[in-house]
């Protein structure tokens, strides 16, 4: 029963990882670089949510505000930095994304300071379902994540721009000759990736404490999940994030609290060396 409880807690953690990994995998699949600023975009989301929450007292309202802010931040980073680096080496994009992350972290640190802040949520009695304690707050968070995920998959699979995005991810030159305007597709991609990261940031902020470094610490598990799920596969990222969250939580009694972060690194390494396509990825060169 203890492990079942850990697994339930892990699922909520896992959703945060899933959202971060989805944001990474979308960018990786289309712009083809690992966006190291993703974690810091999540931090921006958490702080944005934190600003709105005391005014409205509604998790949904803070979530929506955060998502709008991070979508804008991601779009601006695309327009000012990443778009201009199109055609340059992966290193250039990667180093620039580290730079973007640092700038965001610096702004958050200057505006909000380094004192850890929390969403002051009302305490509520957990639901008991067959011996499992389920926190209503976790349920709300899961719902928030589900809405974001549903929206993301709807955009990807039901709208023309989503179809074009997937086409560009599949084969950029084929997409271009078939008349897809890559500028619009890229802008839409960054908005979507930013929004997803923002939702993850709010969840992370509610679950833990909000400080300028919080997002950066998410980067490792998020990269691990993106690779585990198969680069470029949003569904894979979702699945891998959930698995990683549950595994991390359930391993805590054995390996302790600090080593669970190293666990995601180990999983990532094994996946890269043994099955580079991940769970749902296509065969593509990681080597």
């Amino acid at each position, binding site marked *: 029963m203890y492990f079942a409880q850990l697994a339930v807690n892990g699922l909520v953690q896992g959703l945060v990882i899933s959202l971060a990994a989805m944001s990474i995998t979308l960018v990786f699949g289309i712009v083809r670089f*690992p966006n190291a600023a993703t974690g810091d975009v999540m931090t921006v989301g958490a702080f944005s949510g934190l600003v709105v929450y005391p005014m409205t007292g509604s998790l949904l309202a803070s979530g929506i505000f955060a998502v709008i802010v991070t979508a804008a931040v991601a779009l601006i980073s695309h327009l000012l930095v990443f778009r201009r680096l199109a055609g340059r080496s992966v290193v250039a994009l990667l180093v620039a994304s580290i730079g973007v992350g640092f700038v965001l972290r610096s702004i958050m640190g200057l505006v909000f*300071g380094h004192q850890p802040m929390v969403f002051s949520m009302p305490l509520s009695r957990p639901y008991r379902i067959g011996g499992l304690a389920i926190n209503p707050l976790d349920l709300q968070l899961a719902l928030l994540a589900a809405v974001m995920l549903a929206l993301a998959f709807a955009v990807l699979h039901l709208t023309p721009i989503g179809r074009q995005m997937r086409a560009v991810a599949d084969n950029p030159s084929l997409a271009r000759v078939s008349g897809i305007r890559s500028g619009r597709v890229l802008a839409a991609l960054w908005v979507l990736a930013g929004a997803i990261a923002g939702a993850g940031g709010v969840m992370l902020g509610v679950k833990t404490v909000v400080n300028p470094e919080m997002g950066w610490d998410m980067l490792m598990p998020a990269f691990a999940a993106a690779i585990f799920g198969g680069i470029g596969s949003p569904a894979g990222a979702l699945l891998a994030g959930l698995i990683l969250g549950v595994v991390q939580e359930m391993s805590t009694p054995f390996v302790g609290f600090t080593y669970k972060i190293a666990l995601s690194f180990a999983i990532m390494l094994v996946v*890269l060396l043994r099955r580079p396509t991940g769970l749902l990825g296509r065969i593509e060169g990681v080597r």
Partner: protein
Amino acid sequence: MLSYLLAIAIITLIYLLLSFGLSLQYGSVGLINFGHVGFFAIGAYTSALLALSGVPLFASFCAAALAAGLTAWPIGLISLRLRDDYFAIVTLGFSETVRIIIVSEKWLTNGVQGVPGIPRLFSSLPVGFEAQLATAGLLLAVCTLAALAMWRIIKSPFGRIIQAIRDNEDALKALGKDPARFKIQVLMLSSALAGLAGAFYAHYITFIIPEQFVPLVTFYVWMAIIIGGVGRISGAIVGTVLLMVFLEGSRFLRDFIPGVTEVEMASLRIGVIGLLLILFTLYRPQGIMGDYTKR
């Protein structure tokens, strides 16, 4: 004042050893190492712990370089099987894992409390200026050797091979050269340099905690070599000196501008570094000392 300048010089030379290694890796074989600080940490802890258990400093320094160099071997093997960007993520994870191990294995490393009382170099000399001067001299000698080694590597047939690796690995393989071995050797050599830098750092600061080995250190070094110009000795030197001027200068600046707290300054410092990384990759990817004819 003089001993302050000397202190800065020592830290600059330590960073220079890190810059040389990273510049050699990226500038010659094209390895994107985001975990350089991990090797620095391994060197620092190896030498500090050995010295505290009575091993002579000369041996502990060698052990530091050896430990960091040997750790690089499996990492090098991994690098052969991964594309550049994946290797960057893996090395970042590696350095974080090193830090987590240092934090967790309290029996060995004393965890977050850190290792105090590490013996200084040249403790036979009178404490203060002379010992510092001797440390700086030794570091300068090591850096010169490292620079010579780097220069030899860049200019030798071996160096031409590694440049060819960066430019076109497949063509090189077709010519019957084995780029894999060179990649691993360069990684091991520059990691050993980072380990040596860590040993100097530990015995100079005399107190090390895991917090000193965060990824930010790696990106300080990245900033230095990107600003200076990658793959060049002059680039590494200019970049490292500018990095130090910036880090130390920002400390002075705080004394002149009242009302700026230390944490605000730390945020500002990260912001400036981020901005420089962006601007240099956008507008001057070859760095200050880089080739002006190319873009």
